[in-house]
């Protein structure tokens, strides 16, 4: 080993020993392990419930529908009593990896019935307070704790040595300031990542033993990728901590500044990014969409049967031949606009949020897990294409005799029911998380350089 390298390693080692001695790394390890296990247990339980729910839904698809009627046929008139009790709409199976990173899976996990319109049912297994508080999955715990402990481990590296007077002695050695700060970053990163790695893999092993998750090799790769991305995120915050340490003179001030910075980056910036996306692409609510469609439908009905404006159903005969295609067209266009708006909103939110480290982490992890924006958008696209098949069949039915037409529609709905929405492949997941990974790497480099630059001018007295 070269003498320079040996000295660099010595600085890093000293940093690690200091972090173990003042109990910060052990505290980080214990806290992360406990909370990750708690969250893994809660979310894995939730996943098992949702899986159960899905398999019951599959059974319900095979339950018989009840259709029947009785004609009261009397000599001076007749009336009819009819009932129909149909099938339950299907739901999509939950992704196994959502036990770690739930992402948008809770919003996919709902009944979807596809006809000329797509109707999304209620959410299945989420607590009602999920709109107020975050979902406590691994991604959320990592977002909070990895960043916080990274700051705690690194933010007094410079001020502590200055306060104890060892900084002067160290700088009198033949070592560059730049090298010194990078070695300190190395030491803090190693102590963070070591405790994080232990906590995280304990969680994965626990999940595997208790719940059989992650089930296949692909999920295992995902788990490792999640670890990788969260590690880069940790390093970003180590560098932020070093930077704060180099711009403050006292540990006390450094700690307060760090906590404020942490809250801004982790709690405020990503949420503001989502707010901005909502502001830039406003979308109507689903019920508002229904109201608009209803109005359009009434308008068409009135135009096609001007004599009877209170008609509720479409007219039989030649009138419907012209009215129905127009109606389908409006349904198709309105729904497409709505879905396109939602997709655009998701994409924008990801783009804006990826500019800040915590947003990049949340979106990046959900992308890697296959529960992110791209997976959700492909789910919307999947529902849309099913709707297209249905409308196509309904339009073609108009030109066919009734029985052949009904058969056609029946076939189309079977075709729609038998399609499977596939998870994005691992490669696609990696591609969609590129922007988050790039952003995190850029932040890590930026704050590393900023810390070096500030430390050059640091007053060691």
């Amino acid at each position, binding site marked *: 080993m070269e003498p320079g390298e040996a000295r660099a390693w010595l600085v890093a080692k000293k940093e690690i020993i200091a972090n173990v001695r003042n109990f910060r790394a052990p505290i980080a390890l214990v806290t992360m392990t406990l909370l990750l296990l708690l969250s893994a247990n809660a979310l894995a339980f939730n996943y098992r419930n949702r899986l159960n729910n899905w398999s019951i839904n599959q059974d319900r698809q095979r339950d018989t529908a009840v259709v029947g009627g009785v004609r009261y046929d009397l000599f001076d008139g007749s009336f009819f009593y009819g009932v129909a009790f149909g099938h339950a709409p299907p739901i999509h199976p939950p992704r196994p990896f959502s036990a770690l990173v739930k992402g948008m899976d809770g919003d996919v996990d709902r009944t979807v019935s596809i006809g000329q319109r797509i109707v999304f049912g209620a959410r299945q297994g989420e607590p009602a307070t999920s709109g107020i508080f975050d979902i406590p999955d691994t991604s959320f715990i990592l977002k*909070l704790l990895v960043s916080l402990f990274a700051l705690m481990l690194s933010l007094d590296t410079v001020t502590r040595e200055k306060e104890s007077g060892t900084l002067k002695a160290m700088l009198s050695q033949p070592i560059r300031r730049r090298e010194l700060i990078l070695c300190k970053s190395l030491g803090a990163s190693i102590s963070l990542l070591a405790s994080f790695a232990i906590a995280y893999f304990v969680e994965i092993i626990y999940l595997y033993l208790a719940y059989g998750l992650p089930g296949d090799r692909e999920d295992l790769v995902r788990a490792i990728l999640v670890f990788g991305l969260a590690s880069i995120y940790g390093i970003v915050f180590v560098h932020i901590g070093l930077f704060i340490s180099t711009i403050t003179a006292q540990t006390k001030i450094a700690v307060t500044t760090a906590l404020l910075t942490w809250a801004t980056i982790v709690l405020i910036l990503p949420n503001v990014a989502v707010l901005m996306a909502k502001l830039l692409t406003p979308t109507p609510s689903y019920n508002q969409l229904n109201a608009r469609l209803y109005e359009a439908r009434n308008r068409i009905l009135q135009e096609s049967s001007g004599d009877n404006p209170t008609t509720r159903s479409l007219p039989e005969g030649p009138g419907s031949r012209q009215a129905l295609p127009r109606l389908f067209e409006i349904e198709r266009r309105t729904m497409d606009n709505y879905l396109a708006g939602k997709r655009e909103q998701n994409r924008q939110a990801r783009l804006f949020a990826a500019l800040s480290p915590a947003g990049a982490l949340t979106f990046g992890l959900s992308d890697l897990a296959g529960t992110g924006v791209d997976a959700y958008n492909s789910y919307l696209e999947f529902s849309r294409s099913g709707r297209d098949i249905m409308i196509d069949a309904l339009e073609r039915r108009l030109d066919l005799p009734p029985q052949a037409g009904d058969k056609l529609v029946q076939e189309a709905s079977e075709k729609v029911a038998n399609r499977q929405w596939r998870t994005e492949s691992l490669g696609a997941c990696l591609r969609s998380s590129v922007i988050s990974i790039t952003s995190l790497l850029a932040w890590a480099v930026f704050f590393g350089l900023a810390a070096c630059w500030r430390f050059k001018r640091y007053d060691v007295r």
Partner: protein
Amino acid sequence: MFLTILRRELQETFTGSTFLSTLVVLTILVPLSAYIQARHYQRMVEDYALRQSIHQTQNSSQTIALIRPLPPLLPFFNGAYDSLSDEFRLRNDSATANTPSGDLMPLDALFPKIDLSFIVGVLMTLLTILLAHGIIAGDREQGGLKLILAGPIQRRAVLAAKLTGVILPMAVILIYVVSLYATVVAVSSGGTVDVSAANLGALASFTLVALIVLMVIASLGVAISASVRRSSVSLFVCASIWIAAILIWPSLGPYIASSLKTVSTLEAAQREIALKEKELILEELVEHRRTAADLKAQKIGVEYAWQRYLELRRRWIERRNGEIGRLVSERKQQVRDQQALARRISLFSPYAAFTEVLGSLCGTGLESYDEFHAMVERYRQQEFIPKGFDLLSRQRPWLKAVNPDAGLQLRPLQAHSPALSRRLAAAAWPLSILIAEMIVLMIVGALGFERYDVR
């Protein structure tokens, strides 16, 4: 002496960088979130009337749709409103209430909405900790504490002065934030937010409860500051408790409750109900078939047959309502028990207790949702079923009437918004927990400071 200490604390706070930088962040964030919430609310109000009129024309003697009334203070606290369905389709012959559709809100799953409750419950509590963590330990480090205590003053009074020195600036910021938020909402919602005395009263109670929450956190900071020697340790402990209590515990609570008290999944419950319904429907059909055959054999006129038919219908509607209603309410009770447990678990967190109180105050909590459910059920029993059946019995389907459902006149679902005192009374439990926490923490702080080593 008390006032001198207080003045010094205030001076330090108001000129500190923490205070100023937070003020800048809040001044940007508050109008932004208020604007988004207000616009969202405006759209909801505008479409509410449209949806209502559509349902009026779609309602029939068999099925009607009801919309949940909009809580007037929705822009201030979203609560559980958006994650629960706001439309119900009722049928006269079954106690199941179908939700036609829910909205797509994938982004809210990743990042919950920022509204006034988040700003107060998360950001301002953090600021309180930053202001409170060093007031004893930090003063000791600088050596000021010794000098203060050398003067003719009791330790208790010093502690009270320092606590007031944290709470007063927080109250100032709170009033600033609430009034800024309220102004932006009032201005940008296009007049849809009702500026009435009741709503202003609710908003004032909102502020008061928020102040209590901040006082709890301030007392926590003081109690910890008075029991450790270094301010950096104090901040470390405070921040850990804050993260655990404010950020993690309210999220985990419901999940822990659902693994402690399991209920059947939604699909399982619905399947059970559906199977029962189908069974009843088939039985009813058999009876109709028999009756129809009997009547035909006896050569009875259609007018009398219709009366027999109505009698049969009424009997079966009652039976199905009874049996399905029992299943539905059993399931509802299970879910309610689970939710009650989840709320009890979460209540340890001041933030969760705060949202509980706000839920009752703003009408966006789970309790008001349950109330709405009960109201819908009463409406179905007392209004929709009798009138729907009445309409059915006046019909003469064999005469080929043009529009059989035109005569359905239902009184609109009256949303009674309870008085402010009742709403506060509903929140008595979380409110008293908050106050108890505050008192306990203050006592702990006072006791800790009595034996604090000032060297």
